[in-house]
């Protein structure tokens, strides 16, 4: 037999176009840059440091949710209840803080609660084999209701309890952004370098094969949903610290859909087995910047929705064109 080495010829020198194509997420990057250029030409307010810091603060919460969702979706899972989990966490934490509990106890209780919610999702999905979409949509609805119940439909202020996190800055950047960056970095590391992360790719690629290869699929799935819950809890605390109050509609489905959109725009497959944190970061930034620009340009909210939808479509198509072009 011909030896493998003679067959694996070195690739011919890549043409500039091919080299350009091999930059990951090029399409998405191009759309993002185009929007940034457009925005800075149209309004001076966009590149104003205060505005940029504001954008960074806003996207931080979505980024934390999207990080957990990326890992989960890579493993073929889905959690629609992360937004609802955020709502419950903010509600519970706001009530506790306003009733005089210490910050430490409040954080511990609300994060534990969000992990529990995640584990329940995981258990339902793993043991009953209800489709994740259905199971977590049900918990999402349930959690939204619970959140309203906890704050009794009112707005609960926490004064300046969490203001160091929510409004503080280090080296000129919001503290929230540091938290988000840390979460993204750790998730990226886990996905690439740990067995747990590689298991997720294997499970998403073919669950039967993963199981037969000695991967503890049940444990991994529970952990993944638990992690999604924990990150929802963290995102809830971050959101509460930024808004300094929990009101009806904080978190919930709107936030959830933004996170799902960001992850999917970033190239993570809904079918599992594929996804990167890099793509998710671009997706989060893209959605954050678009929302900000539309606000700055004072475009009516009807047109805002239409434009967000259009950007979503363009980005998704751009992504797909690139991955097709490779063959």
């Amino acid at each position, binding site marked *: 037999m011909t030896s*493998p080495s003679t067959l694996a*010829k070195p690739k011919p020198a890549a043409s500039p176009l091919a080299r350009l194509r091999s930059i990951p997420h090029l399409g998405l990057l191009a759309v993002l840059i185009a929007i940034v250029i457009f925005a800075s030409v149209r309004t001076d307010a966009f590149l104003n440091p205060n505005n940029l810091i504001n954008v960074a603060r806003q996207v931080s919460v979505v980024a934390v949710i999207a990080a957990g969702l990326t890992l989960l979706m890579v493993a073929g899972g889905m959690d629609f209840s992360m937004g609802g989990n955020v709502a419950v966490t903010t509600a519970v934490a706001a009530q506790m803080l306003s009733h005089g509990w210490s910050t430490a106890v409040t954080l511990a209780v609300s994060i534990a609660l969000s992990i529990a919610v995640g584990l329940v999702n995981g258990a339902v999905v793993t043991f009953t084999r209800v489709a994740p979409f259905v199971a977590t949509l049900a918990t999402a609805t349930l959690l939204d209701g619970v959140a309203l119940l906890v704050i009794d439909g009112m707005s609960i202020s926490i004064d300046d309890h969490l203001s160091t996190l929510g409004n503080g800055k280090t080296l000129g950047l919001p503290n929230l952004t540091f938290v988000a960056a840390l979460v993204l970095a750790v998730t990226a590391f886990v996905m690439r370098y740990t067995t747990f992360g590689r298991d997720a790719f294997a499970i998403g690629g073919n669950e039967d094969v993963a*199981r*037969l290869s*000695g991967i503890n699929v049940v444990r991994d799935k529970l952990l993944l949903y638990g992690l999604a819950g924990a990150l929802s809890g963290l995102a809830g605390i971050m959101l509460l610290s930024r808004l300094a109050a929990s009101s009806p509609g904080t978190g919930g489905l709107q936030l959830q859909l933004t996170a799902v959109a960001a992850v999917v725009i970033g190239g993570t497959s809904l079918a599992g*087995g594929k996804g990167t944190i890099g793509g998710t970061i671009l997706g989060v930034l893209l959605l954050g910047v678009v929302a900000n620009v539309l606000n700055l340009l004072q475009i009516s909210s009807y047109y805002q929705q239409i434009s967000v939808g259009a950007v979503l479509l363009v980005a998704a198509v751009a992504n797909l064109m690139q991955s097709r072009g490779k063959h």
Partner: protein
Amino acid sequence: MRPPVLRVLGVSKSFGGAAALRNVSVEFRPGEVHALMGMNGAGKSTLVQIISGALNPDEGLLEVDGHTQNHLTPRRARRVGISCVPQRRELVMTLTVAENIMLGDLPASGSMVRWNRVRATAQRALTDLGIAIDADAVAGDLTVAEQTMVEVAREVRRGGRVLILDEPTACLGPEAAAQIRELVLRLRDNGVAIVFISHHISEVLHLADRITVLRDGQVTWAGLAKETDEKGLVRDMVGRDVVSRRPVRPAGSPDVGISIRRLCDGRFLDRFDVDVRRGEIVAVLGPAGDAQSRLFDLLSGRRRPDSGTVSIGGRAVRPGRIAHSLASGLRCVTGDRRRLGLIPGLTIDENVLLAQDRLEGRRLHRWGRLAERAAPLRDDYRVVSLVRNPPVEQLSGGNQQKVLLAKWLGTAPSAVLLEDPTNGVDVAAMAEIHSLVDGLTGQGVAVLLASSSAEEVMRLADRVVVVRDGRRIAEYQVDRITRDELLAATLGGAL
């Protein structure tokens, strides 16, 4: 001689800068079985995909009835009468056999599907070909062999003047393979041009009228089947002679490696017993879809048997637990690599190390070292790819099989279940895999071979247990029986 119905002229095709086909020209004539032969990765499936419109060539032309076809699509190919059963089974696993057969062509009155007609037409298509499969069965519940038959039936029913069969007999037992061959001859006599791909040389020599051999994407020989022989074909395919002979094996040790006692599982296994000593290869041979195809599920722990025990090295294994099966040192290599063997989107290196890393309890992965750790296995099993480390879904079928074997046999097993280990593998690789399996016995591994190929059993096994309807009906020492006697035993009950 009748004029060719389909001509391929100077076709080339590259993937990512590496050539899979180079300037290939072939003609296919009505009423002829035209076999394509070549090693894994030679480009057979690529050529077939170009003919059936699934891929577009980089250079070259296709002519149907003398008319040049530019930009052939699968739909247009079908319209000019080219139908294809691809190498990978492409049934919709959640639909019934009848729906699959009639897919895209459902009889309807107005916009309502007429389900009676769907069932009846599909069932007739099956019975016409002598296939005993219930049209109401769900495709996913069928064995791979049955799925192949359904796909063939679907393409035959649609009619067409060119029928392409890409390794239709690769995972079939002797009976089912014979059925397919009979069918091929019948269609040929009706004037259909058949394109037939197989790695079984004797099968091709019996069946084909004309043979084209590919090597590294180029035609190395083309002519009438009667002008060549086994030796010549091997040389054209591989570039040298290949010998694969049973080595003289020292008598196995007296220690029992695998012991199966009174295993029962539905209609598939009925009080099944077998003992495999360390260093011994015992084959379980039966028609595809019979007992031996259930052994994988039961031994791997994917499925809990109704009753019975399995012991590895004298220790009973908890039934229905994958972790326990792996911990016992048993490695089960599936015959269904797509569904149960590999993760298509992951690279070769990752697939090769998938099980080993988990068994070693490795927690962190250094990507720089991944290639280094996978390299010896890739070399031992001769995995050939055009680019260095593609996702396994881009490998040719035979190379996927080699990745699968490397994945499991590289984990220092103490006992192994091999299910059709050379499914879809070329002659040269088959010889290499056989000697790797021989090597396993040298290390004292107990090998249970679940096979549907009598040739493979004769080449590898020390003993063979013949099963039918889930029961063992006979057992032979392989060196005291001829291949024909063995075949007769599998087909017709005990001698």
